[in-house]
């Protein structure tokens, strides 16, 4: 065809301009996904948002919500429940993000290497991954904490150890599906080496699935970490932590319900926000 027809490249969906059409599902997904950013901002701003220092008693103990200058009441030694919750949410949120980022990086790397090498390397890496996947998280966490001593870092390490294999599995699955496509052979014939093929011709295709999983995972992780902290495997005593705050004050449930219940609600709120945001990210990335 000597005469070239005019050709206009259509704009990919994710490059379309932002519209504020509230009837379009996409608008809501964008709003939902931005909850991740909003929540992170709140977590960063916890010191500014908190009316009091979460660690020191600032008023009468066990004040009911709305009394004694405490919006959500005070705990048994007169600390502000609201401030403790804000700091606790901050800790949970960042802990969840750290574990996910770690899982994403380690798992992604293992999955990428396994999926793009194939053969015995793949087999070996996936056997190891499955081994980790089979470990029960709480037991492992207790074991780690028992041997290394109780510390928040140790708990995070324990959780990360059981968390990355999910990502390895997902990334490896996507990569080996992609590796079977002729575009990889075409890249080989074009002269691309192993590393280049892995990074340019395989990895970008596995990222959407991994990002979707990660964003749906934040909620799970918030709950899992709260659970461990509830079991006493979290930060040590004075530190504000939602699960532990709730657990330690469980005896007050019938009289001063707000002390154990408000941190519990905070966990639920975090998990719900994370799930809404995660769902929105999924809808944005793969609308089907």
């Amino acid at each position, binding site marked *: 065809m000597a005469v070239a027809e005019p050709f206009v490249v259509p704009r990919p969906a994710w490059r379309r301009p932002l519209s504020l059409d509230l009837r379009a599902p996409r608008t809501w997904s964008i709003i939902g996904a931005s909850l991740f950013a909003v929540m992170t901002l709140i977590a960063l701003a916890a010191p500014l948002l908190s009316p009091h220092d979460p660690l020191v008693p600032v008023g009468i103990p066990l004040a009911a919500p709305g009394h004694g200058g405490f919006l959500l009441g005070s705990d048994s030694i007169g600390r502000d429940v609201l401030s403790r919750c804000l700091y606790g949410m901050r800790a949970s949120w960042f802990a969840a993000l750290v574990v996910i980022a770690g899982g994403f990086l380690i798992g992604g790397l293992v999955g990428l290497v396994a999926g793009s090498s194939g053969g015995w390397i793949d087999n070996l890496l996936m056997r190891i991954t499955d081994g980790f996947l089979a470990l029960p998280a709480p037991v492992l966490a207790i074991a780690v904490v028992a041997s290394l001593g109780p510390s928040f870092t140790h708990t995070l390490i324990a959780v990360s150890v059981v968390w990355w294999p999910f990502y390895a599995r997902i990334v490896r699955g996507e990569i080996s599906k992609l590796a079977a*496509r002729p575009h990889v*052979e*075409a890249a080989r014939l074009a002269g691309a080496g192993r590393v280049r093929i892995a990074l340019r011709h395989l990895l970008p295709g596995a990222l959407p699935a991994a990002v979707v999983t990660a964003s749906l995972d934040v909620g799970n992780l918030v709950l899992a970490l709260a659970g461990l902290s509830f079991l006493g495997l979290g930060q040590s005593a004075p530190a504000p932590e939602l699960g532990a705050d709730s657990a330690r004050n469980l005896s007050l449930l019938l009289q001063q319900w707000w002390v154990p219940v408000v941190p519990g609600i905070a966990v639920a709120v975090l998990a719900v926000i994370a799930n809404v945001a995660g769902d929105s990210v999924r809808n944005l990335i793969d609308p089907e």
Partner: protein
Amino acid sequence: MSAQLAPEDVLTDEGYAVVATAEDLHVTFRRNGKAIHALRGISLEIRRGEILGLVGESGSGKSVLGLTLLGLHGAGATISGRATVRGRDMVSATDAERRAVRVAHLGAVFQDPMTSLNPTMRVGRQVAEAAGSDEEALRLLRLVGVPEAESRMSAFPHELSGGLRQRVMIAMAVAGNPDLVIADEPTTALDVTVQAQVLRLLRTLRDELGCSVLMITHDLGVAAQIADRVAVMYAGRLAELGESDAVLRSSAHPYTLGLMRSRLTLGVDRTRALPALPGEVPSPAAPQPGCAFSPRCSVAGPDCAETSPEPVEVEPGHHSACLRPLAVVRSTDTVSPVALTARAEPAGIDQDTAALSLRSVVKTFGVGKGFGRKRTLHALRGVSLQVAQGESVALVGESGSGKSTLLRVAAGLETADSGEVELSGGSRPQMVFQDSGASLTPWMTVEQILGERVRDLGRAARAAKVREALSLVGLPAEVGAARATQLSGGQRQRVCLARATIVPPPVLLCDEPTSALDVSLAASVINLIARLRRELGMSVLFVTHDLSVARVVADRIAVMYLGQIVEIGASDRVTSAPLHPYTRSLVSAVPDVGLTPVILPGEPASPLNPPSGCAFHPRCADATESCQDTELGLRLQRVANDDVDRVACINIDLSHVPTPVYITPKGA
């Protein structure tokens, strides 16, 4: 087309004359907020006991019409008009009613039986479920010609060959004596020899059972082979309808004429550029106020862009939807060959220097899961082939004969177990794949993809080189910014060719590059490959299962059977005066208008267990006692001491080369 029958005739249960109709049927889907008009007002009827061939390029709405008649159009579609089966409207019916009509009156066969058969269930059980009893299932499997039907009853679908699977699907489709069998590209995935068997089977079944068949196909040759009447669709509407002979041999619609003239057959003049319909099928999302064919039509007038033509009877029983009078259409050369340089022999084929030479290449694969049960699959069983500088060689043969494996070994994507692969100059060959979309990295732009081959250049030089490569394959520079999903099939294949030739390779390897394309696109891609080959002085090794394609792209054709070359020779000679019994059956199985195929019996043998002696002997009509001798050691032998023609068969007179019968192209 007006209904020739009163409604009461349609509804009478025994004396019906029309089994199914479409009446001003519109079907619209929504995808990504866009309306996709799959059918834009089509009316036709399927008569009792007839085989109606429904032909058209991809996206013309053939399958949607079939699915709507089956009541399987899905909930997302907006439908107006009617689609009736034995008088019952499948559009307005409830799900339960549709199911009842399907069970009582309809049968369906699809292109890929693997998707319709349950992979975990034995074939016999599946057929019995449709047929009602095991005895009936067995009877049906025998009826559709499944050899050793009893033992096949207990096979799983994956244990059957493609042809046998399709027979099983047909057995299920005719279970319960349906009035209408809807067959959607049932032979597209099959080899020509098996395709001929399956087409024959469908005809026989129609004769014996008296059912009607709606045969959906993109292949005019297939329609010619089997259909009583043919309906040609274009962009969701009917273009032409009539008796097969009338539609295919004295076409009335410019589109049908164009299709017929751009068809590749064994009679095409291979010294000139192939005529190809200009342009592409319109997008189903675009509105069509006038005749959808007008942008590609050489007799179009200004009225065509505004008035949508309705089918009218141009001759008795022959309908065409065109605003021009029949005489005008027929007297105009509707296919102006696209502006491509004529295909001619490349300036120099240098027979003395081989660009690619393969010597006794053997390749096996270990197959089978689990431990210990590994079996050896003999994909290549000693192949020697030389491709001269500037020469084009086609590899043909049925599925599993090892064509792709040979190409992949030549490309270095697969290592031979033994034998030698030698490339002149040592530089890498490039390859073009069948699935052009899948061979482009989806998230990379065309510019980035092409740039992969010239990474050592600077940015600006690279961009210039990419633009140059794109323009060489006839694509505008803007395509560089697009990703594969934003391109049409024809554009993608051009991008693949641009990638292969941005730095011209000594050898271009093509694995069925046109088999996923519509007729008109395939012709222009073939033209393009021919032009690139000549301008860049490349050798081409071209794999195809289609002899008519092989004939026009190649100087020589090599015919493969079960991992060996059984015949090789000049294209014209191989396709018009084949020597080897297998080549002879391949040539005669090519479906074409006005030809009756000779049918090769039997199933392709398995490369897991190649027969002894001449591997073709179980299916060979000329086989003699000695053909199965384990010590036969069959090799390619020179025919009449010439250097071009070789054949591997012990029962052939090698003293002279038969003269090619040049088939004069129609209208030449």
